[in-house]
């Protein structure tokens, strides 16, 4: 749910990074955090276990500049990817304006991608959203690994809607900002259309 603050001239939106466990959602946010000017970002918060697995969510507030005198602020969240944290994932999707689905390109993780994609669809529906309508992009992460599945195969599984998709190596930052810009643009376009 976007928050338009006329009093403080701000447009606030929420973007959620979704995907199977260890696909690189947190790594995306960490890269964005490390490469963003201090004045454009707030503190990055990670509610993680001792082994650095996301327990509840990661959070990164980001300012992307001004549109017609209004500051655009994006709150980026990740969900915990592990299957048994489903209750937490549902909570984080509340009020979402745009979704990035981060798929793990490794062929062994194909099943996990499918399961997470179906889970995203179900959980969005439960919150009253539709994956077919919400601003949504796909990122194929870990493209540098030797066991990465062919793109066509991943597209078939994770992107039946044929939305914008990006190849990425999040640890090195490849594709990270392209993905963010694409989803932010979709969110603002949707906001404009809705308004």
């Amino acid at each position, binding site marked *: *749910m*976007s*928050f*338009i*603050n*006329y*009093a*403080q001239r701000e*447009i*606030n939106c*929420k973007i959620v990074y979704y995907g199977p466990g260890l696909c690189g959602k947190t790594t995306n946010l960490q890269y964005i955090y490390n490469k963003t000017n201090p004045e454009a970002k*707030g*503190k990055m*918060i990670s*509610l993680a276990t001792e082994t650095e697995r996301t327990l*509840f*969510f990661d*959070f990164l*507030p980001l300012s*992307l*500049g*001004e*549109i*017609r005198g*209004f500051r*655009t602020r994006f*709150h980026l969240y990740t969900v915990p990817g592990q299957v048994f944290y489903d*209750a*937490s994932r*549902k*909570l*984080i999707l*509340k*009020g979402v*304006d745009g979704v990035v689905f981060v798929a793990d390109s490794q062929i062994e993780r194909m099943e996990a991608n499918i399961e997470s994609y179906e889970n995203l669809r179900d959980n969005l529906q439960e919150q009253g959203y539709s994956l077919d309508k919400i601003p949504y992009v796909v990122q194929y992460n870990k493209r540098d690994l030797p066991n990465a599945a062919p793109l066509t195969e991943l597209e078939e599984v994770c992107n039946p809607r044929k939305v914008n998709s990006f190849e990425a190596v999040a640890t090195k930052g490849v594709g990270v900002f392209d993905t963010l*810009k694409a989803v*932010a*643009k979709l969110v*603002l*376009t*949707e*906001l*404009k259309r*809705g*308004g």
Partner: protein
Amino acid sequence: MTNQLVMYEEELQQINSVCEQLHRDSNAKAVLVIDKNGQAIAAAGEVESLDVTSLSSLTAGNVAATGGIASLLAEKEFAGQFHEGEKTNVHLSIVAGRVILVVLFDTRSSLGLVRLRVKKASVELARILDDLVRKSASDKSQTILAEITDDDIDNLFND
């Protein structure tokens, strides 16, 4: 997109003055109003040293998680929460099902006083929020959104 939250100058001023009043009446360190999705709306008191953005997101996460527990226990929601610290205590309450009223307080105040003052402030806050929802539903102009062009959006990313 439905269920968008819109804030206007007039209502923000009213919310700010409720926060300031509550801050004074309850001898609190700080008072925050946060929407349930984690966006900070208003703050009063000693907020310079606070990371209001992070506090808002974590508070909303906390309230969402507690709401999840409530529904597992077939409760509607837990309307209030209290966290006791060594120096600072936190009182959280949900107002009008939409926003979270946060009061940070120390030994200058007490839980009883905070609860009492929060009750009064919540009524006032709920009234302002009702007005806000009505106003935003009837305001179809939404000028800023209607004025945004595709070029504006493109320009934001041409750096």
